[in-house]
């Protein structure tokens, strides 16, 4: 028998929980959150460091602290049901969701609307094709983080980290605090991909060397990792012969990027964006299929969970409105494209009512730059421009476009950077 809900949410991390709370505030009567892990909270539960919540909760929290806040908001609300240990197997265009858990076996639920909040996964060794042996001791940084922070195991004692994304940096410090020796962090780009504060407090504080424009060309070890060969790379990221050197280690942690987890979205044949690798969404986070919403890292990888919550609140609100058939009529649809130094922009589509509506655009730059002007244009007209002292690919840019500006949009909108003259 299919159980009926107003809103079904796939994923009980910060996006799913924030979406559930927002749908509840909007008046949805029956909300279901499905989570595959043993508890709610998602990846935050293993991110024990602090620095979360400054925007959203106006105080500095740890990952578990932030997750706890999200859980407290939805618990003991009769309108919100949660099921953990529950794996969603399929989502169908008629908004039925096929899932399985140990208590109920296989079951089907149906929502008037569905919100996809599956988050993202780490890229692995296979994704970046490092040559060499295949010994034990190679982990993604997030897998090691779960072992160290939740399960109580150390993955090794002498660590090399490949990639300078935030998880890699955080793990460099974490392993050091647990008594391990972190030999080096290697980054193929000429700039770090993590937040500056993490370079300072995770690497500099513990004298861990960061090698920019370097990569691993070979992993050594038959049963267990014994070391890696490192080489400098040229501007096209090709290893430069003759620059190789060896680093001894028993563990290699990979922090080489995150990919939105969209198996279910692909099954639904949602339009996915080739660069964000997440569903194409409008300003309400409605996907290409009516009734389906998406928010958080499944749409585009965020650097702050605060923005994940903000985005999920939008999705939850409008999924609830659509479930009640209360969405405002759309009079025009405009496409938003990223150009000139902006790599991605979310939302990619604006479905606007006659009077327009305020919209927040989230953008990522393609490369670091200083003193640039961000321009939002519609044809020849500049709708909005903003001076930015610094842009970095690792730090998302958020710009609010007021309602009257969206009302005047009459065709494709572009967002791009202009380098300041002189």
């Amino acid at each position, binding site marked *: 028998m299919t159980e009926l809900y107003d809103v079904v949410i796939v994923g009980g991390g910060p996006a799913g929980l924030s979406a559930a709370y927002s749908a509840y505030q909007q008046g949805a009567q029956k909300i279901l959150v499905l989570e595959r892990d043993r508890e709610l909270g998602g990846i935050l539960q293993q991110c*024990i460091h602090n620095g979360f919540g400054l925007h959203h909760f106006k105080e500095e929290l740890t990952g578990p602290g932030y997750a706890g806040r999200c859980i407290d908001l939805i618990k003991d609300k009769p309108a919100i049901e949660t099921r953990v240990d529950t794996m969603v197997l399929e989502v169908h265009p008629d908004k039925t969701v096929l899932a399985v858990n140990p208590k109920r076996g296989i079951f089907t639920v149906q929502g008037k609307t569905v919100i996809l909040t599956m988050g993202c996964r780490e890229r692995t060794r296979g994704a970046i094709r490092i040559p060499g042996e295949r010994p034990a001791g190679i982990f993604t940084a997030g897998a090691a983080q779960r072992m160290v922070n939740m399960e109580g195991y150390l993955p090794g004692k002498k660590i090399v980290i490949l990639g300078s994304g935030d998880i890699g940096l955080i793990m460099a410090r974490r392993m050091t605090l647990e008594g391990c020796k972190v030999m080096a962090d290697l980054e193929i780009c000429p700039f770090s991909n993590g937040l500056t504060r993490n370079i300072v407090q995770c690497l500099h504080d513990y004298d861990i060397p960061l090698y920019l424009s370097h990569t691993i060309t070979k992993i050594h070890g038959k049963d267990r990792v014994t070391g890696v060969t490192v080489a400098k790379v040229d501007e096209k990221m090709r290893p430069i012969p003759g620059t190789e050197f060896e680093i001894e280690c028993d563990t290699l942690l990979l922090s080489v990027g995150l990919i939105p987890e969209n198996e279910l979205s692909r099954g639904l044949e949602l339009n996915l964006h080739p660069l964000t690798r997440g569903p194409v969404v409008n300003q309400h986070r409605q996907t290409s299929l009516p009734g389906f919403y998406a928010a958080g890292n499944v749409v585009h990888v965020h650097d*702050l969970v605060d923005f994940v919550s903000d985005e999920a609140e939008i999705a939850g609100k409008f999924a609830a409105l659509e479930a009640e058939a209360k969405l405002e009529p759309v009079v025009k649809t405009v496409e938003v494209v990223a150009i000139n130094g902006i790599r991605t922009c979310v939302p990619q589509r604006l479905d606007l009512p006659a009077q327009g509506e305020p919209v927040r655009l989230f953008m990522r730059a393609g490369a670091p730059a200083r003193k640039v002007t961000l321009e939002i244009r519609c044809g020849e007209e500049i709708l909005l421009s903003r001076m930015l002292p610094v842009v970095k690919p690792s730090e998302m840019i958020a710009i609010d476009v007021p309602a009257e500006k969206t009302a005047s949009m009459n065709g494709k909108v572009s967002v791009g950077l202009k380098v300041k003259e002189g």
Partner: protein
Amino acid sequence: MQTKIMNCINCPMGCELTVTVDEEGKFVSVTGNTCPRGAQYAKDEITAPTRMLTATVRIKNGFLPLLPVVSGGRLPKDKVLSCAEALRRVEAVAPVRVGAVVVKNILGLGVDIIASRSMETK
């Protein structure tokens, strides 16, 4: 007078601070901060740098084997490693409520170590 460049670590903005110190290395002034916390950070970083500590302790009879903890305030930077080491010998007992004091006044530094989540029994 001498200037030092540093990045503020208070929030994800990571403002670049230019700090002026005198001949004895004492703090004189700072520019580049976009909030008062940045100014305080620069001053502290020159005189007595401090850091927050987050770690885990073992927990007996918990739903999970580890309890994440956070220092109730900033610790002297050079004491962070010894505090982390001390926490490896601590065992909490479930159930624990978020915010509960797990270690009072760690290493006599005047800072408590606090549970950063609730942990039910298994």
